[in-house]
């Protein structure tokens, strides 16, 4: 999400899959869309039938490749070289959409004099601290005038303007380098460039679709950034048929970040308050060995600006200009929603102290290491299966065995519930050695509860409940609500200050009347929760207080206030439930180009984000063919086919007065309203932990040395090299010469908890396999159908060999590099069983989002036993 958020302002897909039919070219990379998102891919096929060019770039030939006009095989992990070379081509040939780029991006902005590029410092940017493996991003900032306003050079001549910096940065990303690093012949690469350029501009638009083929890499955020920058240069953002289509993998993965269950975010992308710690000056440890909590006796030092008070928090994470200037209203409204009358005391300061502060990386994987060290006592798993589904799964199972207690909520007895008595073939498990107390609670299916999912296009869709869940199965809403009620009762008489948040928490979601026909009499009211998320007027003008149940709904986030009079659980969702009986997530009118009355898209039901950019700086459509939002001179407002993502009545020629704040500080031609300068960020002066421009590093495990720098892989990824369970293969390690990548099959989902108990799907895909090229198979004497062993420094698994031309050897610098691919859907539970692919992958964390690298690692493959089964 930071890849899109840092570039455009919001961590969500900029468009919707149904708009792909308006694309003239669709580039799919880091995604096997036809097999992983088949129904969305139907739009790609429609576009192709209408004449669009479809390009698929992937290590693995799939049905997506088969249906594309152009398939480009590439070495896993080399994406930034391929895309960076396109950026170089556009800059050197002035093939970018000049008017769009000059007005809508920061290409002309000047960067500070003390900024140094990776080209100057052999693979790191200025501000790098080799001892901690982290960056101080101060020198990446804009050059500013005395008032703090960024300076720029619209002629693009200044050596420190973003244009010139990018030219120098990408100078070595040549077609020759593409051949050498990606294994893609330059003529094939050139075809991709020509197709994109021919299909972008005033009259035409191209879209880029990606999925976890990009996110699950040690520089995943920067790959997404490269695509986002490319789309800015081509002028494809905010326009029909354009955009960056992030293809999320789960029903509500977008929803889980918007209304987050993530350690570093509060709802609506407000950061979780922090009191960060780093090892002290005397005992500095490399960041790669950083642990989740301070080690007893070790000297630690505070880092980052103080966020001890609400005022300090707003100063530290807020913005003076752009839409985020409204942060005080959003955080106050969240505190009001959570803590009711307590949120009014001391201008909200008292309730702000209730919010726990993070001190380090408390992400899932970082927490797994802490768990392994015995620092985590209790763990909740809500429909999640780390024992098979998380990276380095063997280590995950060891970590679960260190817990005091574990609560698993699922429909089936998944691997993470059974880890204490069973493991994969060859792994002995002795229950008498495992202390973990396990509570396995049956959960309701999606058809057995009402509620909303937010899909890949930021669209909230409400599900009605069909039937009661069976037996003692309950919704997770029921579980959390009733656990909360019990805890409030247990703490009701506590005299301790630290228990006050529990007592203060507003927690009444009882139904007014039992649900007709249901035998479950105490199911909470999901609509009431949605009302809190939408927001309500907690205090009227005459000072009367209203609780959630009786209060009036707010119509949208523009009415939220920083004075405690409004409550709102997630400001970006505000407007989803603007009045009683008007749940817009449940609206089901499919009419219209953008079907505005089918579900509700955040923010404000906008379907294409940044759509101000669909018009030229004067507010006229770039072309009749790509008309979307434009300025209506007569009515003096923006109009078109979507909700304008811009102040409705701000004219295109509006110029901010000096000293203007908030959204008024942006001109009438600044389409990226969330950014402080209103521009799309080609260069990211802040917001990323691994650099302002995407740079090629090899994967953590790679078969070749990085030809660009001595820095082999991402210098600020966290490697945990000292962990015996997380051994990594070195460059050129002859024991692991093959590049491996993983992918999803159409018929299965993740580690299988939702599919491997289903006979229909098991019949279609009954077993784990590994795809191997005929050349590699011949080299290793493997026949189609043989059992083979795949090994990495973390472990070995067995799978059946599928010898196929879908994977092909690549020629890099005259050397042959083999790639294999395997799905990851099996485990030791369920109706079909098989090895756990995630036992092979390592646990190195990408620096921005702490995600693993499952899409490019090294392995070896050898025959297991002779003969076919």
């Amino acid at each position, binding site marked *: 999400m930071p890849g899109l958020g840092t570039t455009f302002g919001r961590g969500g897909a900029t468009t919707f899959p149904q708009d792909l039919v308006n694309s003239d070219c669709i580039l799919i990379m880091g995604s096997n869309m036809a097999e992983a998102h088949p129904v969305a891919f139907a739009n790609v096929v429609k576009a192709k039938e209408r004449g669009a060019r479809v390009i698929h770039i992937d290590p693995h030939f799939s049905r997506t490749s088969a249906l594309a006009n152009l398939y480009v095989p590439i070495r896993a992990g080399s994406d930034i070289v391929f895309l960076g070379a396109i950026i170089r081509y556009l800059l050197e040939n002035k093939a970018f959409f000049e008017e769009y780029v000059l007005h809508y991006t920061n290409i002309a902005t000047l960067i500070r004099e003390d900024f140094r590029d990776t080209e100057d410092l052999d693979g790191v940017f200025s501000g790098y601290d080799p001892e901690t493996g982290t960056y101080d991003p101060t020198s990446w900032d804009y050059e500013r005038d005395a008032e703090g306003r960024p300076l720029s050079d619209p002629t693009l001549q200044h050596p420190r303007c973003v244009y010139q910096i990018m030219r120098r940065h990408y100078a070595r990303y040549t077609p020759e380098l593409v051949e050498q690093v990606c294994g893609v012949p330059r003529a094939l690469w050139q075809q991709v460039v020509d197709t994109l350029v021919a299909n972008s501009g005033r009259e035409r638009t191209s879209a880029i679709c990606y999925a976890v083929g990009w996110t699950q890499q040690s520089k995943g955020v920067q790959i997404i950034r490269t695509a986002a920058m490319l789309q800015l240069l081509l002028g494809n953002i905010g326009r029909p048929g354009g955009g960056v289509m992030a293809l999320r993998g789960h029903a509500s993965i977008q929803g889980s970040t918007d209304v987050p269950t993530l350690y570093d975010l509060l709802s609506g992308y407000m950061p979780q308050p922090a009191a960060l710690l780093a090892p002290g000056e005397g005992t500095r440890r490399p960041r790669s060995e950083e642990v989740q*909590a301070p080690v007893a006796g070790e000297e630690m030092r505070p880092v980052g600006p103080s966020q001890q008070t609400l005022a300090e928090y707003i100063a530290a994470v807020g913005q003076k200009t752009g839409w985020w200037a409204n942060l005080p209203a959003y955080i106050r409204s969240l505190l009001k929603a959570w803590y009711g009358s307590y949120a009014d005391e001391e201008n909200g300061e008292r309730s702000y102290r209730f919010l726990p502060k993070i001190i380090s990386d408390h992400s899932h994987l970082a927490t797994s290491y802490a768990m392994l060290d015995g620092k985590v006592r209790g763990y909740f798993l809500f429909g999640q299966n780390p024992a098979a589904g998380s990276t380095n799964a063997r280590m995950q199972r060891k970590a679960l065995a260190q817990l005091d207690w574990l609560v698993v909520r699922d429909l089936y007895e998944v691997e993470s519930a059974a880890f204490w008595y069973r493991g994969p073939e060859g792994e002995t498990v002795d229950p008498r050695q495992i202390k973990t*107390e396990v509570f396995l609670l049956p959960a309701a299916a999606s058809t057995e509860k009402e509620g909303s999912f937010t899909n890949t296009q930021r669209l909230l869709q409400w599900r009605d409940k069909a039937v009661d869940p069976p037996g003692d199965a309950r919704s997770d809403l029921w579980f959390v609500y009733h656990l909360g009620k019990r805890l409030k009762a247990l703490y009701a008489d506590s005299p301790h200050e630290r228990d006050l948040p529990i007592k203060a928490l507003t927690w009444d979601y009882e139904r007014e009347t039992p649900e007709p026909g249901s035998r479950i009499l105490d199911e909470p009211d999901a609509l009431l929760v949605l009302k809190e998320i939408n927001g309500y007027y907690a205090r009227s003008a005459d000072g009367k207080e209203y609780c959630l149940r009786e209060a009036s709904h707010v119509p949208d986030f523009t009415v939220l206030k920083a004075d405690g009079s409004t409550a709102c659980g997630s400001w970006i969702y505000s407007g989803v439930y603007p009045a009683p009986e008007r749940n817009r997530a449940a609206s089901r009118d499919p009419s219209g180009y953008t079907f505005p009355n089918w579900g509700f898209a955040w923010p404000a039901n906008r379907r294409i984000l940044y759509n101000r950019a669909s018009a030229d700086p004067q507010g006229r459509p770039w072309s009749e063919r790509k008309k979307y939002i434009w300025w209506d001179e007569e009515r003096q407002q923006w109009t078109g086919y979507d909700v304008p993502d811009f102040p409705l009545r701000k004219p295109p020629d509006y110029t901010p007065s000096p000293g203007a704040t908030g959204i008024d500080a942006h001109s009438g031609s600044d389409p990226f309203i969330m950014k402080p300068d209103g521009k799309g960020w080609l260069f990211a002066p802040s917001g990323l932990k691994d650099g302002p421009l995407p740079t090629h590093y090899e994967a953590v495990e790679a078969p070749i040395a990085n030809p660009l720098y001595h820095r082999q892989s991402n210098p600020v990824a966290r490697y945990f090299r000292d962990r015996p369970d997380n051994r990594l293969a070195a460059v050129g390690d002859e024991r692991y010469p093959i590049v491996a990548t993983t992918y999803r099959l159409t018929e299965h989902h993740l580690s299988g908890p939702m599919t491997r108990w289903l006979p229909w799907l098991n019949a279609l895909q009954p077993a784990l396999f590994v795809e191997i090229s005929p050349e590699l198979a011949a080299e290793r004497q493997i026949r189609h159908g043989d059992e083979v062993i795949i090994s990495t420094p973390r472990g070995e698994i067995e799978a059946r060999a599928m010898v196929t031309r879908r994977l092909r050897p690549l020629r890099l610098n005259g050397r042959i590099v083999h790639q294999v691919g395997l799905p990851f859907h099996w485990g030791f539970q369920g109706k079909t069983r098989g090895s756990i692919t995630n036992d092979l992958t390592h646990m190195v964390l990408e620096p921005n989002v702490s995600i693993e690298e499952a899409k490019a690692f090294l392995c070896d493959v050898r025959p297991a036993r002779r003969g076919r089964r």
Partner: protein
Amino acid sequence: MSSRKREEAEEATAARPLLVKTLQEVADEALEIGSKRQPFSAESRYKAPRIRDARVVHSVCPYCAVGCGLNVYVKDGQVIDIEGNPDSPINHGTLCPKGAATFQYTVNPSRLTRVLYRAPYSDHWEEKSLDWAMEQIALRVKETRDATFVERLADGREVNHTLAMASLGGATLDVEENYLMKKLFTGALGIVSIENQARI
């Protein structure tokens, strides 16, 4: 027609009394299909889709994030079929293999329906009541929180948190469920490692 279907059809015909039809009766048996009247056999006239008379409940596919609309057909309190919603502008009634298998995901004899409990170092599951489990879990949470809660760091900064408990949720959780989890675990209890598949 398969042999089994043919047998069924023959049985159905045999079960009805033999009648000599008038021309009018034959005409009555014709049905309007599109713009034309087509003759229908008596057998076809008696047949109806099993979803006729079923209650249609609007839902959304729980697998990938495309968000295909589902029609869930309910009869006598049971889900009898799940199909793509033809009205949805996202899927126009179509579904992929996973989405089309949602029925088996929900109606499945392997599903857990009772609470299972495994005591420390035990080698077996025990069936427990939901109420007992909820109370035990609440007690574990309180005990762990009380033992591990940190109000201030050594440098004096206030943190009000515990790092000794964590949660990991799947991304098939509803928006409303995620909201309450973060509110309770982080907002009330001070647990910071509240995580989700979105990170994976």
